[in-house]
């Protein structure tokens, strides 16, 4: 009982402080009683993740290799060049993994793909990196399926729990930032903090119900709804006009903050505040297009993409094409993993926060005019074959694709796919 309360308290603490680094110890963790044939899972050393992964792995004899992600979550660390092939190689070397297990397979979180060069890991240690499920909640299903990813394990989800954690941790950061106000004007501080928590929880809990952010539609909807609610309340309680205007100002400011927080580098959006202000959407700068003469059909881009941007051609050609570029959230995992630099960038721009790719600016700005004809695949109908998204022959349409970022729930098709090579 005490342990459970302690666990819960620890979990809650970490949820509130999610935006901070909490490094845990590096090295190999034995889960159960692993042997030389037991699977090896990879994780960064962010405390909350390691705890959650260990909980998911309970009852399975395996190794968890905790490599140095500087106490950050693996996705941010990978993009920031704080979780790279070097950290994985170090962890493998120090754990003497080569002598500990007979096989040469490490199951890695797919969110490490923007940072970890798997060919370097293979070259230096002999270990093959295979991509695990995108979300660690899917680990038990992944293991039960014989270490295979089903198609619905590929895509980024922003489930209710994720959204609540995001809302609470972000609101908590703001509350701490304005804490000094509490010393001189406590009532204002507590009311504003309460309002921040309320707006964030409201916005993130009901996230799927609001319209897509196009021409500021989502932000305007949330602000209008909350303003209406506050106006009704003000009328009901007989607020003075000055009070109403003050709190309306605060409310609009908090709504704007939330809208601009969505611009950052999240698994759903990647845009700059400037882009949002000018265009009213969260679209990425990066827009991939593949050069078929360079593509070697290794399908790594399909395997690491959390947004279902790519599909394989299996007609006259065996290449990968871009079918839903507007879903791209610019994690650049495909760019990092492509062994032949076959991925070009339609916009010529990147947001610039991914630091793990050498010569990114040069590669992303390459002229792609010879690939204009590849646009014919945008919006092409796709189906699953052997678990891999395949372009369906003769079904190319010019219809607009499904609006991006809303796709997580649609990926109902569940067929098996062998991960990695």
């Amino acid at each position, binding site marked *: 009982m005490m342990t459970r309360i302690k666990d819960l308290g620890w979990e809650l603490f970490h949820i509130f402080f999610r*935006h*901070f*680094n909490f*490094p845990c*110890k*590096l*090295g190999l963790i034995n889960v159960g009683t692993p042997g030389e044939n037991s699977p090896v899972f990879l994780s960064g*050393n962010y405390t909350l993740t390691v705890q959650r992964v260990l909980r998911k792995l309970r009852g399975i004899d395996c190794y968890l290799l905790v490599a*140095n992600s*500087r*106490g950050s979550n693996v996705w*941010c660390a990978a993009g*920031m*060049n*704080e979780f*790279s092939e*070097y*950290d994985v*190689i*170090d962890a493998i*070397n*120090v*754990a003497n993994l080569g002598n500990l297990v007979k096989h040469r397979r490490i199951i890695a979180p797919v969110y490490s793909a923007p940072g970890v060069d798997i060919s370097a890991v293979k070259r*230096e240690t002999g270990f093959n990196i295979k991509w695990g499920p995108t979300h660690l909640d899917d680990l038990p299903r992944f293991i039960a399926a014989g270490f295979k990813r089903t198609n619905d394990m590929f895509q980024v989800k922003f489930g209710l729990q994720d959204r609540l954690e995001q809302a609470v941790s*972000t609101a908590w*950061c*703001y509350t701490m*930032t304005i804490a000094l106000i509490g010393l001189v004007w406590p009532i204002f501080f507590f009311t504003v903090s309460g309002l921040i928590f309320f707006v964030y929880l409201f916005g993130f809990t009901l996230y799927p119900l609001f319209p897509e952010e196009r021409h500021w539609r989502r932000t305007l909807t949330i602000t209008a709804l909350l303003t209406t609610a506050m106006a009704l309340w003000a009328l009901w309680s007989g607020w003075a006009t000055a009070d109403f205007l003050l709190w309306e100002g605060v409310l609009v400011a908090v709504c*704007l*903050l939330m809208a*601009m*927080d969505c*611009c*950052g*580098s999240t698994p759903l959006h990647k845009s700059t*505040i400037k882009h949002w202000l000018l265009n009213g959407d969260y679209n990425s700068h990066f827009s991939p297009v593949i050069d078929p003469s360079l593509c070697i059909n290794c399908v790594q881009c399909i395997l690491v993409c959390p947004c279902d941007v790519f599909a394989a051609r299996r007609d006259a050609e065996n290449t990968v094409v871009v079918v839903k570029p507007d879903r791209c959230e610019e994690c650049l995992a495909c760019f990092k993993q492509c062994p032949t630099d076959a991925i070009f960038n339609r916009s010529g721009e990147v947001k*610039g*926060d991914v*630091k793990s790719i*050498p010569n990114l600016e040069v590669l992303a700005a390459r002229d792609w005019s010879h690939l204009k004809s590849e646009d014919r695949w945008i919006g092409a109908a796709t189906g699953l074959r052997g678990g891999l998204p395949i372009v369906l022959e003769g079904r190319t349409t010019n219809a607009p694709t499904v609006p991006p970022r809303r796709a997580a729930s649609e990926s109902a098709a569940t067929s098996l796919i062998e991960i990695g090579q």
Partner: protein
Amino acid sequence: MLMYGWMKWVEIAPQRYDWAVTVMTFGRLDHIKERIANEVRAGDHVLDIGCGTGTLAVRCLRKSAYVTGIDSSKYMIEQTQRHASEAGLADRLVVVQDSVTQLRKHFGDGSFDLIVSTMVLGEFPREYLSYVMRDCRALLRPGGRLIIADEVLPDRLLTRIFYAIGLGLLWIPNFLLLRRPLFPIADLPGVIRAGGFQIKSIESWAASSFKMVSAESPILDAATPGMVP
């Protein structure tokens, strides 16, 4: 907005590395690097593990040494090269981009007279350190020296408690400025000794939470038991 600003700030972490280190070590490190460089003799082959922006490597180059810097960050490697070029000493500098456990893949046994490392190994737990020490022992020529300067766990229990509080208070500025996770270990000299070195001197700063350990690789003697051949 706050999150966005935070991400932007994190992105430029490598650019502010030098002054962030100076701030977080209260200016101690420049002095220590100077001291280490004074140990360098002309013509020495020096390995700088985790060379960073090259502040120590350039000091060693100025002492007419041949310096090899290894760092896993491409940005840092380029900084080292730039600083050496600006000092006109790049001809005696070799840089390698790789991680700390890969030393023996690049260098033969006995290829260095001096191995130095500052503010790198404190990021790693004991197992990592032991691994690196074993490698260093092989890479140093017999009689070669090893100088490690880093944050460690203080010696006494009471100081450790104060240190833990201090670390807690510095936790936010540390991640704001340096983004360096710290796993200060107890008994750094012990780990170095276990790697097969003879400790020559230990100096401590900041209530023994920062140590500079100077050690020597013993001259091989067939009669000495337990030595790595």
